[in-house]
């Protein structure tokens, strides 16, 4: 790392902190805020607020400047352990200062509100107050100093490169947020602007607009209904993300997840409408049907590639359009004329709205709240069946049956989970209250199927012979072929499984009622198939990564709704962020190449650690 980089970063931090809003003492719906910056109060909407004095806190800016200065000097002029110690110390001081400022702010807010209420106000005058960009920057800078300090200690220099699987997506996310922020800065006016602002005020207010945008986007993290809604949105993303990741691992690029999802929905619809029988048979069959539909749709491009060498990228895209046509054919009209003969479709709901009839009761996936033992809004009992089953599954796999072979190990853990489910169902539940906003979220059992798919991906890819062969094909097709792997067969298999994973996303929409009704509706958001690309790349094709990335985009997409309501920014901003993340990850986060190329990374790490090797000798 170049030596000038640290002083530059510190300078940038100080400059940004100077023009950032540090606190928002009051925020109205629509984003109009009263902002507290280190050099004064900025009030674009001329909102009336009580006297608010934070005392020493604005002066903390100069402490931060000093901190940044010392950090730069320490980095430039100290060496080795002393440098690490100094940076640790400065980072610790920074964290302490950050905590003190936040505490002072919340205390002052509480005091002002209490005083106003005492003086006869009916409601507290300061609402929706929050920390803002300045404080976030301070926290980030303190962490930055810690990481920098860790890098000075023995074995720390390669830290970032060793964790490149996290660093590259994180840097890409950050860059995408910066570009997204610039877009918002350029396209949106300052909310609630009433009187002309000074240049300083303008900068602060614009930065607040950008900050508020991201506060809204990440807002769902802070409430339980928000988290449920995010999990709801994340469910199909996990499926499609796994689908794309599965292809990537075998060296294939599956852009066909949208089409595979649609075909999964078609098959699930037919199963849900026409399969007779009890629930314990029909529901698994319907889920399998969804997987089958996707698998068939995925296998076709796989076969075309294996047989004719046709590139899967264009073919999967074409299959998306064809699947769209199939959906239109099935749902947009009841009657079609084939060569003059009229054909009637019995499964389409009568009327103009393009959707199917409701699927049978037996094929529906229960809502997640029902699985937890609740009956809807109001008081209820949290059943211990599911949590206990989950706990025993994990404990069984990672603790009790660790010594067994993989197959028995998984089976024994599943048996433990079953036992947990039964025992938990017999135990008395925990009384709890379910709010109306939580009960209205349609998170359903498909979420659990998604988690199981993650586990399946993990086992299949890293613990079985087939997975090993697929990864070998992905890394070095020629070598794999020489070693006896049947490439053509593997291509079809990969695309079929990838398609099945994408098709399973339909269980959420059709069988789980993810879009309000237990039907196949034309409004099914098949574009989540494209989001899957971003999820897979962001998650670096690992099971945990894909799950986390899907969760992240679930949160962002949920928050996007508020963005539209409050700031009039199109929800598509989230799509733009997604696209930018994919682009930046493709470019390795614009980081040096030893972050992206495993061979160069190994070389880099080796060069860093000659001393340690000597010790070994």
């Amino acid at each position, binding site marked *: 790392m170049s030596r000038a980089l640290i002083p530059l970063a510190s300078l940038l931090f100080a400059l940004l902190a100077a023009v950032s809003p540090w606190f928002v003492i009051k925020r109205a719906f629509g984003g109009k805020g009263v902002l507290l910056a280190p050099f004064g109060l900025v009030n674009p909407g001329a909102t009336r607020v009580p006297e608010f004095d934070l005392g020493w806190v604005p002066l903390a800016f100069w402490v931060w400047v000093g901190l940044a200065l010392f950090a730069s000097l320490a980095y430039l002029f100290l060496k080795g352990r002393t440098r690490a110690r100094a940076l640790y110390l400065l980072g610790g001081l920074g964290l302490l200062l950050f905590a003190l400022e936040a505490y002072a702010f919340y205390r002052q807010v509480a005091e002002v509100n209490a005083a106003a209420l005492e003086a006869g106000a009916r409601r507290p005058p300061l609402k929706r107050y929050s920390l803002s960009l300045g404080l976030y920057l301070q926290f980030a800078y303190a962490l930055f100093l810690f990481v920098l300090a860790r890098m000075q200690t023995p074995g720390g220099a390669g830290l970032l490169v060793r964790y490149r699987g996290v660093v590259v997506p994180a840097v890409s996310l950050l860059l995408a947020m910066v570009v997204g922020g610039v877009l918002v800065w350029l*396209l949106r006016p300052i909310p609630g602007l009433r009187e002309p602002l000074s240049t300083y005020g303008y900068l602060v207010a614009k930065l607040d607009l950008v900050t508020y945008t991201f506060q809204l986007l990440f807002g769902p993290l802070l409430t339980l209904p928000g988290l449920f809604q995010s999990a709801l949105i994340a469910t199909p993303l996990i499926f499609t993300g796994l689908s794309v990741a599965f292809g990537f691992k075998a060296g294939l690029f599956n852009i066909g997840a949208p089409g595979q999802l649609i075909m999964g929905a078609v098959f699930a619809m037919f199963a849900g409408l026409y399969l007779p029988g009890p629930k314990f048979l029909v529901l698994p069959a319907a889920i399998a049907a969804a997987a089958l539909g996707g698998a068939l749709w995925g296998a076709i491009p796989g076969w075309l590639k294996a047989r*004719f060498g046709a590139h899967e*990228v264009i073919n999967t895209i*074409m299959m998306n359009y064809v699947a769209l046509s199939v959906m239109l054919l099935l749902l947009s009209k009841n009657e079609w004329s084939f060569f*003059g003969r009229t054909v009637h479709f019995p499964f389409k709901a009568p009327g103009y709205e393009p959707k199917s009839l409701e699927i049978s009761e037996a094929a529906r996936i229960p809502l997640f709240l029902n699985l937890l033992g609740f009956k809807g809004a109001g008081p209820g009992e949290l059943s211990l069946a599911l949590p206990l089953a989950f706990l025993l599954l994990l404990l069984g796999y990672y603790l009790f049956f660790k010594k067994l072979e993989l197959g028995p190990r998984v089976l024994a853990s599943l048996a433990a989970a079953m036992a947990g489910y039964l025992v938990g169902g017999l135990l008395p539940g925990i009384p709890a209250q379910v709010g109306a906003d939580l009960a209205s979220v349609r998170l359903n059992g498909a979420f659990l199927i998604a988690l199981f798919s993650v586990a399946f991906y993990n086992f299949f890819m890293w613990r079985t012979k087939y997975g090993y062969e697929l990864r070998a094909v992905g890394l070095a097709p020629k070598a794999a072929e020489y070693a006896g792997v049947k490439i053509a067969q593997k291509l079809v298999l990969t695309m079929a499984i990838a398609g099945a994973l994408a098709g399973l996303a339909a269980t959420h929409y059709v069988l789980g009622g993810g879009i309000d009704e237990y039907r196949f509706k034309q409004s099914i958001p098949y574009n989540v198939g494209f989001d899957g690309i971003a999820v897979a790349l962001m998650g670096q094709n690992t099971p945990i990564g894909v799950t986390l990335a899907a969760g992240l985009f679930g949160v962002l997409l949920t928050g996007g709704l508020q963005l539209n309501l409050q700031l009039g920014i199109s929800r598509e901003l989230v799509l733009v962020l997604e*696209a930018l993340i994919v*682009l930046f990850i493709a470019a390795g986060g614009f980081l040096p190449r030893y972050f992206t190329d495993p061979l160069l990374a190994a070389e880099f790490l080796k060069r860093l650690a000659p001393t340690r090797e000597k010790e070994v000798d």
Partner: protein
Amino acid sequence: MDILSTAFLVALIAGALRQTTPLLFTALGGMFNERSGVVNIALEAIINFGALAAAVTVQLVEAPYLAQDPNVRIWWIPWVGVLAAIVAGVITAWIHAVVTIRYRADQIVSGTAINMLSFGLPSIVLLFLYQNTTASQEVVHRILPISSYLPFLQDFFATPLGRILDQSPLVYLAFVLVPVTYFALFKTPWGLRLRSVGEHPEAADSLGINVFLMRYQGVLLSGVLAGIAGAYLSIDQINQFIRMMAAGRGFIALAALIFGKWHPFGILGATLLFGFAEAFRIQIEGAGVLPSPILQAFPYVLTMLVLAGFIGRARPPAAIGKPYEK
């Protein structure tokens, strides 16, 4: 409907020429980047951004004139739109070029990202300008067919042949570009250099050819041509931008490029095939022969068939898809 009636044939041929034009522009553009060794599946995005830029620019430029006189028609305004489309296309292509050439990103992933960008970003711009997320305001100044420039030939344009030839200047431009690109690619030193960096960049480099520069040129040229295709869609075929209006043409053009064996005349034939298929679909859509969704799937199925079966053993540029390392 009589398949062999003159009216049907005229409509079919004229429609085919119109459907071929954007594909031809795009595929010729794609030819330059693929010949230079860079895969560009962002062609779809370039068309989208070109279409957006053209419609928005024309609308913004014409607005003050129309405010003064609602009936005013100014000949140069649509061409400013075409220019804007070219600029937008070049910027989009430049992003792809930087990420794939300079930062050696996976070319398919980069292209996909830019395509995703072209699904989301227009909505934000449209909401900012027109308060909706799906379409731009309709423009008055479209590119008109040549009959409007040649009023003294009115009688000719009423004949069947005249109706076929009465196309937009962009249609003529697309077809003229076929021999022009052939000449540029196969008869000039520049074309030789471009092809050499796509075939064997190390050898080209050893001869003093700047591989990166040639690849940048190839990709940016695709931006120019696919951008014009976008303008053709938004301010020529119709009079507004609609979200995702490329509708897969970028990908179909790629298939035509492969089918046409990376050669201008081959591409001409391939895009004509797709153009005729599409025009034929439009012509029989109303006849109730087959449900329209099935007909709409036709060009996409055709693309897959073309990729699978009829290609023969075309040989792509040898170094395609591989980032060059100096």
